[in-house]
Structures are given as structure tokens and as C-alpha cells.
């Protein structure tokens, strides 16, 4: 997904532990005073960094972080996510999972859009139907894939007409029927693709995307609030009544071409909160900002995928030995420390520490330990089966700041195994994708940012047989069945247990070599309080306060 690319290209993070996340409501500093949100002024407008949205501001049209940040502020979905990824009802009164394929949604009565229209079940159903339709070609259309009535076959992708799985019960209740078990569906409903749309949107979608009317904690600050390429100014929506009620006076998002510019503005007090420390300042930000920064793992997992088509690496005895040897030969600690200045956290599994149900002790994860001796032994065992020839390449797109770490990983492998391991750069992302999809590369870099805070999202789409983002063409019946059992379990604990079990299969087959979790880094100006980053690396703007 696009949010991922942006994050990979730019956001850099530090290795604080997840304890920071759980224990400190006011952000990453040691001060941690979460008890006094009233300190700041309720009229102070918070300014933050952003990017010009790539698409009109339509919820299901947006799949990148620039527009997502704005949409999340001006719309409210059925649920929203707390900083730790846990779920809280927003517009929903309650959501019941009746079976792995059936949900009933009841929404709160009396909520309105900022133009006064009441939010009803119909607003959700119409918006979703619109987004799911093939002819809308919305970027986030795939979110509706699992709802009955959605077709994904051959050339057809999307619903023809309305989704048969959405049924209105009364003004405030509707049911969702799925075409395959997805017990974590309720968990997804906080994503922007699922936001409701007011009736006025359907009169002229294009005009609506230019000046959207939402039901969220903020709204556009009048005509011309969105100055393209420059900024967008949001003011508090007085009619919003939900868990994200703004305690500040508004939110101005200034679009920056570079993170360096945003950082310079933070240092001179022209911007209050930024969600990325530029690479150039990683040496100095701690002294620049005192305790006004955060550096903690985010829901971004990075790895090197070794595709099934690579000679010597098939899913058999030889391939498993070679994959394990590669994994043991990468010094993750050193690379995250030296190359990334601590803004990556060495991986201990295939998901992310900010996801509910995450564990750092999945059986088999010792294959991620740096162990040169063992690596050499395993490689020699594989060579005994079938000698290895040629070089081991790691493909990457050179427009995304990957060269340094790919070279470091390749060096680590070369030095340990005594083979020729090198990075294979492609000039840009499009070229890289082309080569990868045509199976013209060996191993390649991979990154994944979760769509919603659920373990399944890190596993199903990436490693299930034939899944959309299974770029290495991995296939394992055992893994597939464990994932299927997990997604059919209506009890979250049972589901997570299955997902952990599925990961043990991955640790054996190693379709992809886990490297590290990307961290979120951010900073805020003096006098700014209660800055906390959500599971998706975006600050929870509504709770930020500022002394005036």
C-alpha cells in the first residue's frame, strides 16, 4: 500500500521499547505526565507537518499518508484506534460479530455531519457501495473484497451494483455479510475506506473531494482552507461527539517538500509537532529536543524476501538450510545501530510489537539470531546436497534510501558465508516492481505497513497461497490452514494463538527473512503537551495541547 512506501522512504524511528508505548500517555519522554491534559489551552491551534494529498479527499480514494492524515481528522468511522492499536467505538454504539461471516452494526443516534445532516446507517451503506463498485476504481476498493457481492475474478474487480452483503435493518442498524470468514473484520472498520459520506457527496463527488464535509473531530476551516501544495487548515467540529473530541483549537497541516524543512521549522517554533526526524538530524535530535521526542517501533515490518523461483532456495531441505544460513548471517543489531542510528528495532517475528497479540517468543524465532558459525555450517550442509554457484543479489528501488542498509546486509552475508552477496538497485519503484513481478530478480527487499492493527494483516496478505501481496510466490498448506483457522475464530485469543502457530511455519520455511521493525520518530516544540503517536505512526492530534 502507498502509505507504506512513503513511510519506508522517509520515516525513521528509534529503538525504544514497547513499554514506552504502553506506559506513557504523553509521549516518549521520561516525563510521562498524562494526568493533566488540562494544562494547555483549549483554543490553541496545533500546527503539524503533512504532504499534499495525492488524490481528492475521498475516504476510499485515499491510500497514502498525506491524505489519510487529513481524512482521519475530518471523518469518524464506526470505531477508532487508541495509541496501542486497541479498538474503541466511535460512531458505532456496538458491533457484534455474530459469526465469522456476519456482523451487526448499531450506530449512535443523533450524530451529525458538519453540515447538519444526521449520520445514519444509510450513509455507511451508500459510501461503501460507491467505493466498492468496479467503475469507481477507488484505490482502497480492496478493503471491501470480503463483503458479499464483491467480485474479484479475472478482469472484473469490484461490485457490479450494490454489495449484497450490506443490509439496512433500521435507520441506525445494518448488517454486514462476508463472502469468506474474516473474524477480524470489525477490527478493520476504523480505516478511512470505511468512513460514511453525507448525501451531498453523491451530488458531485469531484467537488466534494475538494471540500469534504465530514463527521469527525475537525472540519475544514471555511472556503479555501485547503491551499494546494501549501497547507490545509482544520478547525474543531463542535458537533462531533465521540472518543476523539479535540481538546485544542484546531489543526493546521503544513505541507513540506522535505523532512529537513519541517525539522528546521520545529526548531524555530514555526510548527508544533512533526512525525519524522530527518536522517540528517538523527545524531543531534536528542540534544536539540531534550525529552520532546519519540522513537518507538511502528506497525512497519521490513524483510528480504527470497522468492520461490530462486535456484537453490526452493522450499525443500536445501532451500531451508540456505535460508536459515542467510538469516543467521545478518547482524541485525549492528545494522540497525550503525546504519539506522537506532531508528529500527531488530525483528523477533513477522508482525509488529504495536499489534495486539504480538509476542517476541514465537517458537522458531531463534533463526533470527546472528550466529556466523551456525550460518556457515548450515550453508555447508546445503552445499553438500547441491553446490551453490553465482552471486546472491538483493533487489531494491534506489529512490527509497535503501542502498545503505541493503549493502550492509549483503556485506554481512558475504563476510559470514564467503559468497558473493550484492545489492541490485533499480532506479525507481515502478521499475523495481516490474522486474520483481516478472521474476527477473533474486532476493528483494520488502516492506509492509499494516492497514489495521491485527496480526492477520501481517500474515494472510503476504504469505497465504496466491494472496495479493505474496510477491515471493510462497505456498504452504500447513500455513494456509492455520491462517484460515485463525481468521475463522471469533475469540481473539484463539485467533492470535493460531496466528502465532502459523508463524512457526514461516520460521521453518523462511519465505522472507525478517530484518527489523521500522520505528516512528517524531518531535514537538516547547510548550506542546500530550503528544502520543497512534499505532499507525500518526500523532493523535485531538489530544495535543499547547500553552499559549
Amino acid at each position, binding site marked *: *500500500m*502507498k*502509505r*507504506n*512506501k*512513503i513511510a*519506508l522512504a522517509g520515516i525513521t524511528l528509534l529503538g525504544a521499547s514497547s513499554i514506552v508505548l504502553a506506559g506513557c500517555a504523553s509521549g516518549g519522554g521520561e516525563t510521562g505526565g498524562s494526568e493533566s491534559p488540562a494544562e494547555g489551552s483549549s483554543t490553541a491551534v496545533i500546527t503539524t507537518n503533512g504532504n*499534499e*494529498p*495525492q*488524490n*481528492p479527499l475521498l475516504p476510499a480514494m485515499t*491510500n*497514502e499518508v498525506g491524505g489519510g492524515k487529513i481524512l482521519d481528522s475530518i471523518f469518524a468511522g464506526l470505531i477508532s484506534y487508541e495509541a496501542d492499536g486497541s479498538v474503541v467505538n466511535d460512531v458505532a454504539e456496538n458491533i457484534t460479530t455474530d459469526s465469522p461471516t456476519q456482523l451487526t452494526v448499531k450506530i449512535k443516534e443523533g450524530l451529525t455531519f458538519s453540515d447538519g445532516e444526521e449520520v445514519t446507517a444509510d450513509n455507511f451503506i451508500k459510501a461503501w457501495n460507491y467505493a466498492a463498485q*468496479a467503475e469507481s*476504481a477507488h*484505490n482502497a*476498493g*480492496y478493503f471491501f473484497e470480503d463483503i458479499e457481492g464483491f467480485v474479484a475474478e479475472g*478482469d472484473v*474487480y*469490484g461490485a457490479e451494483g450494490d454489495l449484497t452483503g450490506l443490509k439496512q435493518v433500521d435507520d441506525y442498524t445494518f448488517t454486514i455479510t462476508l463472502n469468506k470468514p474474516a473474524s477480524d473484520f470489525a477490527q478493520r472498520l476504523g480505516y478511512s475506506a470505511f468512513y460514511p459520506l453525507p448525501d451531498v457527496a453523491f451530488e458531485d463527488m*469531484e467537488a466534494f*473531494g475538494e471540500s469534504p464535509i465530514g463527521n469527525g473531530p475537525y472540519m475544514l476551516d471555511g472556503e479555501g482552507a485547503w*491551499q*494546494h*501544495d*501549501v*497547507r490545509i487548515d482544520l478547525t474543531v467540529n463542535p458537533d462531533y461527539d465521540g472518543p476523539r473530541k479535540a481538546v485544542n483549537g484546531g489543526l493546521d497541516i*503544513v*505541507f*513540506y*517538500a*522535505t523532512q*529537513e*524543512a*519541517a525539522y*528546521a*521549522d520545529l*526548531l*524555530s517554533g*514555526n510548527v508544533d509537532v512533526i512525525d519524522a526526524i530527518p536522517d540528517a538530524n538523527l545524531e543531534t535530535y536528542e540534544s536539540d529536543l531534550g525529552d520532546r521526542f519519540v522513537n518507538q517501533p511502528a506497525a512497519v515490518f521490513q524483510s528480504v524476501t527470497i522468492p520461490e523461483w530462486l535456484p537453490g532456495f526452493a522450499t525443500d531441505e536445501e532451500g531451508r538450510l540456505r535460508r536459515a544460513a542467510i538469516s543467521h548471517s545478518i547482524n541485525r543489531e549492528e545494522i540497525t545501530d550503525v546504519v539506522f542510528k537506532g531508528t529500527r528495532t531488530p525483528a523477533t517475528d513477522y508482525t509488529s510489537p504495536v499489534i495486539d497479540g504480538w509476542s517476541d517468543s514465537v517458537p522458531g524465532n531463534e533463526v533470527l539470531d546472528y550466529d556466523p558459525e551456525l550460518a556457515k555450517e548450515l550453508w555447508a550442509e546445503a552445499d553438500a546436497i547441491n553446490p551453490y554457484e553465482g552471486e546472491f543479489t538483493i533487489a531494491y528501488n534506489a*529512490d527509497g534510501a535503501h542502498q545503505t542498509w541493503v549493502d550492509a546486509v549483503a556485506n554481512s552475508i558475504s563476510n559470514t558465508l564467503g559468497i558473493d552477496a550484492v545489492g541490485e538497485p533499480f*532506479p*525507481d*519503484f*515502478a*521499475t*523495481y*516492481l*516490474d522486474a520483481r*513481478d516478472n521474476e527477473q530478480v533474486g532476493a528483494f527487499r*520488502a*516492506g*509492509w*505497513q499494516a492497514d489495521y492493527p491485527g496480526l492477520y494483516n501481517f500474515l494472510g*496478505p503476504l504469505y497465504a497461497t496466491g494472496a*495479493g*501481496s505474496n*510477491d515471493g510466490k510462497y505456498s504452504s498448506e500447513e500455513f494456509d490452514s492455520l491462517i484460515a483457522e485463525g481468521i475463522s475464530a471469533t475469540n481473539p485469543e484463539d485467533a492470535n494463538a493460531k496466528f502465532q502457530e502459523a508463524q512457526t511455519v514461516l520460521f521453518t520455511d523462511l519465505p522472507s527473512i525478517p530484518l527489523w521493525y521500522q520505528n516512528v520518530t517524531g518531535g514537538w516544540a516547547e510548550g506542546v503537551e500530550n503528544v502520543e503517536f497512534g499505532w499507525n505512526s500518526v500523532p493523535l492530534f485531538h489530544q495535543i495541547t499547547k500553552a499559549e
Partner: protein
Amino acid sequence: MATYILRRILQVIPVFIGATALIYFMVFGMPGDPIAALFGDRQPPQAVIDQIRARYMLDQPLIVQYLHYLGGILRFDFGTTFSGQSVIEVLGRTFPVTLRLAVMAILISFVLSIVIGATSALLKGSWYDHFQLVLALVFIAVPIFVLAFLAQYFLGVQLAWFKPTVGGQNDWGDLWLPAIVLGFSVYAASMRLTRSSMIESLGQDWVRTAYSKGLSRGRVVPVHVLRNSLIPMVTDIATNFGILMVGATVTEGIFNVPGVGATLYNAIIRHETPTVVSFVTVFVVVYVLVNLVVDLLYGLLDPRIRYVK
């Protein structure tokens, strides 16, 4: 003179068609599918890609796309960006900012190079002249992004004389810092040019004649020597103007100026053909026009050129 101007203006048309065609074919020739790249690491189903390709006519043969683009231009429609804005709107919003920045930088560079170049020429061989030479070498040698970062950090963040970034405020006054950086990045060569051209003029017979007629130094230097030395300077400014329009990309990024730089950069990354072609074409047209103005200025500065034409 009038036919000369007309002829020069008509020359813009083939240049325009040639440039757009060339750029169009080059952007199209870039490997990779722009639509796939829009989605990042999560690949959409082929059907969705096909739909979006059709929306931007990317499924048509290149020549059809190009003719469609040219046809649009005749109706003053330059196509739309992937975000659905009309390219002409984006051009109208970003070009004036970059233009303003380039003009300010040229003015700064012009004043610096005239003042320093002329004084250096008059004080040839003095410590002042040597000092200016060293300083000029420093400014030529330091890459512009280093200059920009240093200026931003010391003048913007530490001393707070300027706002470190420009952001939405892009009136003349707000653009001083990036303009100064840009101006300093090009002044050195122009200054050396002014100096050598002045030194050459100072040794000419007509200067001696002017002095022998009893004219004061205060009149000979500015009116006679400087004016004659301006001819190479004017060409130089035109070249600089082109460099600055294009080279502002880096500076605009660092100072967050909402000009063409970032927009063009992003458009190239996304293979947004209509945007790239339109922007680069405008660059070409600006370059051609500036050169036209330069040729006309020659006539003003040197009557001989005017009458020959």
C-alpha cells in the same frame, strides 16, 4: 526590428512542438508502470490497474496520447494530474512563485556581481581583489544544498533573522532567504566576468580619449566602461535565469517553497506525463523568451547590433 522580434517569437512554435514531443516520448520510455507504483508495496488487482490506466489514456498507443495532449493544449487544456487537478492550475499556482524566486535571485546576483566585479577591476591586484577572488571560489565550490542548509540553520534557526522555511507565505518579502542563497550560488561567475570585462574596457583607447576630453572618473567608469562591460553580463544573466528556474528544485525543497521544484520532482517520480511535459515545456519556453529578451537588450546596449539587424 519588428520583423526580427516577430521572427523570434514565431520560432517558439517549432521549439514548443519539438520539446513536447521529445519529452513526451522520453517520459513514456521510462521503464515501469506508473500506476503500479502509485500503490506502493500493496499491489492492486490487474483489473483496477487497467481501469486507472484507461482513465489517464495510458492504454492508448503513444502517438494517440501525444496527439490528444497537443489537441488539448489548443483548447488550453494541459491534462490532469493523478490527483485530479488540472495541470494548468498547478502551473498557474507554482510557476509565479519560482519565477519570483528566480527574479529575486538574479537581482541579488546582479547587484553583487556589478558592485564587487567593478570594484575588483578598479582595485586590480589589491588585497581586496584577491580576497574577492578567494570568496568567489568558495561560493563556486560549495554545493548549493550545503549553502542552503547552512543559511537555514544559522540565519533561520539560530539567529532567527528569517523564517527558516517559506511555506504558504510566498510574497516577495518571505522569499528573501532562499533568494539570497540562490543569488550567492550564481554571483561568483558573473562577478569574475564583470571584472575581466571591466579590466579589458579600462585599457581601451576610447577610455583614454574620454579622460583626455576632461571627463571625470565618476562619469567615465559608470557610463562608458560599465555600460560596455554589460554586454557579456546580459548573456550571463540569461543563462543564470535558466539555471535558476531549473535549479531552484533543491532550494525549494529545503526552504519548502511551493514552486515548481517539488511538484515537478514528484511528477517525474510518479511518471505523471502531462504534468512533466507541461512543466518542462514551460521551462523551454521561458528559456527561449529570456534569450529573446537578451537579444533585444543587446540592441539597446550596443547600437551597432541594433542597426545591423
